[in-house]
């Protein structure tokens, strides 16, 4: 253990193997050694992560709900206990309601765009120290997930599938700096590219330098050939600042994504693209288009989007 010569040999061997791995991985290719390492790791650790996520969720919920019981009076203790259990019930029912709402939103957006989706839950998140933004979800090749499928949630585009294990899949998020997606301005139909910038908002480049880009313009995905990696019509975000770039070949703007990447939990993976481009019919409805009389007491006036006729191609 203290033999420095032996120690150095071991260290040198390990460092060389690490570098070999890096170079092999950068050369990449289907079925390469590193590719196989990744897929076996997904097969082994996918179930472990699923189990860990399943354990962690109720436990953290429970810790949140239970307050300390330290009273000298038994009656107070009993009441507090009852209170705690009721609070816990309330909190879990709230959690259930939230999840039901997320699922509702997801189904609505899938219905509007006629995407066929597989719902999945985020079970693991990549570290910021890795300088990439990725998450793992609990659906994999067994559920029909393959590489380069579009991932969305009730708000809009989340990312695309980059690798798949038997029961898990890894998603590259829209705000990753290596992420790029073709986009269409919903109003003017101008096309451009949206790039992720980490914690910063997304960057939009519109191909036509004369295009009118205004704050508040909504963006949807342009769609790729055969819907891979992107199906058309998924809401991406809203322009919130337009850069003045006189003389540049493209117009640039900053875009705020619809999806909140810090609270990602339920997502949908599009396993079958729509037959027709849904254009911008999937975009969130603009806030209060007509001031309705406020006499109605029903809690959720339906926006009526489900009754609108299907968009023309």
């Amino acid at each position, binding site marked *: 253990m203290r033999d420095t010569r032996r120690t150095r040999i071991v260290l040198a061997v390990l*460092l060389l*193997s690490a*570098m070999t791995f890096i170079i092999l991985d950068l050369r990449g290719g289907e079925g390469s050694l590193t590719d196989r390492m990744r897929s076996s790791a997904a097969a082994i650790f996918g179930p472990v992560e699923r189990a860990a996520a399943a354990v962690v969720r109720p436990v953290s919920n429970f810790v949140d709900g239970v307050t300390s019981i330290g009273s000298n009076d038994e009656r107070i203790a009993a009441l507090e206990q009852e209170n705690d259990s009721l609070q816990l019930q309330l909190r879990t029912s709230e959690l259930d309601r939230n999840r039901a709402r997320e699922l509702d939103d997801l189904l609505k957006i899938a219905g509007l765009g006629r995407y066929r989706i597989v719902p999945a839950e985020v079970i693991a998140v990549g570290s910021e*120290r*890795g300088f990439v933004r990725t998450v793992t979800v609990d659906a994999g090749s067994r559920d029909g997930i393959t590489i380069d499928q579009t991932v969305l949630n009730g708000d809009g585009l989340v990312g695309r599938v980059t690798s798949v294990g038997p029961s898990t899949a890894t998603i590259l998020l829209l705000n990753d700096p*290596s992420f790029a997606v073709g986009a269409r301005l919903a109003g003017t139909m101008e096309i451009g590219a949206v790039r992720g910038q980490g914690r910063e908002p997304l960057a939009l480049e519109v191909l036509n330098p004369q295009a009118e880009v205004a704050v508040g313009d909504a963006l949807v995905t342009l769609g790729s050939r055969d819907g891979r990696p992107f199906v058309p019509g998924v809401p991406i975000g809203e322009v919130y600042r337009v850069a003045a770039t006189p003389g540049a070949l493209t117009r640039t703007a900053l875009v705020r994504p619809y999806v909140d990447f810090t609270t990602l939990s339920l997502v949908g993976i599009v396993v079958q693209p729509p037959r027709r481009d849904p254009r911008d019919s999937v975009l969130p409805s603009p806030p209060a288009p007509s001031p309705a009389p406020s006499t109605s007491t029903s809690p959720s006036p339906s926006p009526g989007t489900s009754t609108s006729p299907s968009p023309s191609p």
Partner: protein
Amino acid sequence: MTFTRIMLNVAVAVTAVVLQLTVVNPLDLPGGGPDLPLLGLVGLALVQGPITGAVTGFAIGLMLDVVPPADGAIGQWALVLCLVGYVTGLVGPDVRGSALRVVALVAGLSAVEVLAYAAIGLIFGAPGVTGPAVLEATLGTVGYDVLLAPFVVPPLMALARRVESDPMWA
């Protein structure tokens, strides 16, 4: 001794990596929050010496490289954590006596780890490695690791020492 040591290190490595991915990272703390694999590695390598430190670091790093949702080049974390384990093992006899020195070592290694990983990423052209991102990751990691080190490293050192010396475990 060797077998129980391997069992201990495998258990610590798997636990640290899985907890990091499923519990710590979803909290979305600035800089990625505390680095449990690094803390686990330091706790073990301080007692077990440079060779075991380097091998354990390599193994933990390789796990971080391949376990989903990892997306960097395979071998990147292995390279960095192998060095971290080696250095920890080398300075172990001088450091492990004082809690203050252990925390200082954790702070230094956390910074070195993030910067070294970023440097490798930069060489191979990873688009996410930018000045502000590196700064945030370094400061965040060092801060959270220093806060958490007193609760994680000493118990692990005690456990490793016990496995090393107790004839019942041998």
